[in-house]
């Protein structure tokens, strides 16, 4: 059986499973549609949150970004896990006690203002749509390779599948499909990593393998990796080669953003009790950590495997000939995401850092005229990883299913957050208060379909690698929703004007900074400054600006509050009541 057929069978079987669950769990009432009747067990909810959370960015993109940068990109690892501590300690239990369906609903009620609610809806839509672009970029890469179709067709298939189960099943469908997706994606991520770890270090546990001895050379794996990279003029893997301030702010931005993401917060409305909300955040992090502890091992080992594939006899010897290149290079070259150019015409692939001035002399001496892997898309690394390590065909097919599970599950969760913001927060409570439950449900489904269409169009032309686009969404969440939610709980005196001014200040600053470097509304070539470290203000990249946006949000809100006086007494009592677990409404039963 050839690889293509195998891919089709494995990916098709996994889709059939998700769709089957969605149909089985088809939702009936409004409460069911949004929050699965608040009847979800914390461990199940934790696994579903993990699947919702780990998107194309975590699964497909992150290990590749770590592989090509090394230590500096540890921000992704710490940022996307550390946020759960903030979520469990500062938000989840109180939002569950408050007992509403959506994030704008909390903000609207707590700040006793429809304007605050509308501002929250605007923030939510900005965050979620940016996030979905990243998912579509990732899904496009996965489909283009595994179904051997072009990017556009891949995106259309992806949007069709997301539409099917998100629209039909609602949240309940999503909770149980996401449990299934978690199982598929974690298995798919772990199996190739275990094989590769055994090949390189003899240790079957990848996170331990990362810090063990490289079997072939007898050196510690990371020492060996640093050594071969430096021999080719690259930066060493374990050192810091960017600004420490930027790394600090980037990590901060991802952490705060994690705790402010509406599609993640919405999950904590579905647990039965307040104490379960805390526990659920803990379980979510356990399930996430299984992948996040493996990812740095995948990154480092893949980077080493790439170098040793191209320089089979060591970096001091000749690289391989074009004619002898392995099949994976051939197949990935067909997608255009990997490309070669024999610059010096010697028939061999020179892979080195041609930007390094110190290495230029060595390269000239060896007759090298530039790096000959001219395109190496970071998003292909995890998907190509089993092929690079020459693992069996079923492992390659499995990773395709896993990558698609990650991209599609997150896209579905985001679409739910988008549709509930529009139908529940805009239509039902602001524009058309008389709407029936049934009409509201229909509006939710129509807005989902609309959001899928927008996301598909934007996914055709993403402003970066999947994880980078997603990081922008985190910056926006950090600068807008997190501060508003936190002040709503921890400051009894915070009033409506403070919250609105804070969110708008954070959103404006962050969006302006991002658009300055990445183009207005991410349209290519409309940026005002080139996106390079020299142009960044104080060396802060557009990916890290969310941390500054959050500080601006807090400060602006506080000053406005001081100038405009206290909120009414019943709001202060409301804040008192959400601070204690007792009296939370039980699981709603219909």
């Amino acid at each position, binding site marked *: 059986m050839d690889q293509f057929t195998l891919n089709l069978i494995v990916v098709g079987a996994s889709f059939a499973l998700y769709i089957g669950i969605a149909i089985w769990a088809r939702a009936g009432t409004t409460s069911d549609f949004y929050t699965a009747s608040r009847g979800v067990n914390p461990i199940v909810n934790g696994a579903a949150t993990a699947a919702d959370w780990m998107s194309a960015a975590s699964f497909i993109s992150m290990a590749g970004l770590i592989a090509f940068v090394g230590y500096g990109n540890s921000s992704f690892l710490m940022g996307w896990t550390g946020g759960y501590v903030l979520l469990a300690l500062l938000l989840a239990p109180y939002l569950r006690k408050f007992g509403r369906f959506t994030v704008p609903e909390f903000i609207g009620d707590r700040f006793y203002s429809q304007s605050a609610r509308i501002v929250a809806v605007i923030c939510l839509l900005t965050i979620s749509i940016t996030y979905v672009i990243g998912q579509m970029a990732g899904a496009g890469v996965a489909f283009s390779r595994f179904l051997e179709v072009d990017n556009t067709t891949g995106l259309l298939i992806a949007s069709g599948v997301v539409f099917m189960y998100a629209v039909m099943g609602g949240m309940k469908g999503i909770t149980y499909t996401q449990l299934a997706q978690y199982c598929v994606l974690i298995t798919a991520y772990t199996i190739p990593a275990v094989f590769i770890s055994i090949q390189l270090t003899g240790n079957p546990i990848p996170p331990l393998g990362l*810090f063990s001895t490289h079997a072939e050379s007898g050196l*510690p794996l990371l020492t060996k990796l640093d050594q071969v990279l430096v021999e080719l003029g690259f930066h060493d893997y374990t050192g810091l080669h960017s600004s420490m301030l930027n790394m600090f702010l980037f990590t901060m931005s991802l952490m705060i953003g994690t705790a402010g993401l509406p599609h993640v917060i919405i999950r904590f409305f579905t647990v039965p009790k307040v104490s379960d909300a805390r526990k659920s955040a803990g379980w979510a992090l356990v399930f996430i950590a299984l992948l996040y502890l493996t990812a740095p091992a995948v990154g480092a080992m893949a980077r080493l495997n790439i170098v040793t594939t191209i320089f089979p006899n060591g970096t001091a010897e000749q690289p391989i000939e074009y004619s002898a290149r392995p099949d994976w290079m051939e197949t990935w070259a067909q997608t255009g995401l990997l490309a070669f150019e024999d610059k010096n015409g010697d028939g061999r692939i020179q892979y080195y850092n041609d930007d390094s001035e110190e290495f230029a002399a060595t390269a000239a001496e060896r007759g090298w005229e530039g790096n000959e892997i001219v395109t190496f898309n970071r998003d292909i690394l995890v998907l190509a990883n089993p092929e690079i390590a020459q693992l069996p065909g079923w492992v390659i097919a499995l990773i395709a299913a896993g990558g698609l599970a990650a991209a599609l599950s997150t896209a579905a969760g985001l679409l739910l957050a988008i549709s509930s913001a529009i139908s529940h927060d805009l239509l039902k409570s602001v524009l058309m208060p008389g709407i029936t439950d049934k009409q509201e449900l229909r509006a939710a489904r129509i807005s989902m379909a609309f959001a899928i269409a927008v996301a598909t169009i934007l996914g055709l032309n993403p402003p970066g690698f999947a994880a980078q686009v997603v990081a922008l969404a985190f910056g926006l969440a950090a600068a807008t929703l997190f501060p508003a939610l936190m002040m709503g709980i921890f400051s009894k005196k915070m009033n409506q004007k403070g919250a609105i001014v804070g969110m708008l200040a954070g959103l404006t600053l962050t969006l302006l900074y991002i658009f300055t470097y990445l183009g207005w509304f991410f349209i290519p070539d409309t940026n005002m400054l080139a996106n390079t470290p020299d142009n960044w203000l104080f060396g802060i990249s557009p990916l890290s600006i969310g941390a500054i946006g959050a500080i601006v949000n807090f400060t602006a809100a506080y000053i406005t509050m001081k100038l405009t006086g206290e909120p009414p007494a019943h709001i202060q009592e409301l804040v008192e009541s959400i601070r*204690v677990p007792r009296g939370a409404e039980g699981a709603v039963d219909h």
Partner: protein
Amino acid sequence: MTNDRTASAYWKANIRIILICLVIWAIASFGFAILFRPMLAELPLTFGGVDLGFWFAQQGSILVFIGLIFYYTWYMNRLDKEFDVDEK
């Protein structure tokens, strides 16, 4: 612990444990993995060929985060009962 069992005492105790947890959270990630990494590298301790700061950046911090959430959950369940504000 005092004998004060009011809602404000409960909240104060909650804020205290949150602050303690967040200090540990920050030290494990922003501290050991980023800001103090050069200092930790001076120690004669290495972990699989690299300094401790690298390990914290890629593994240690994540393990600390998990520990913190479960500790906080356990602590708060106890606190809820003590102040008689737990869910029935």
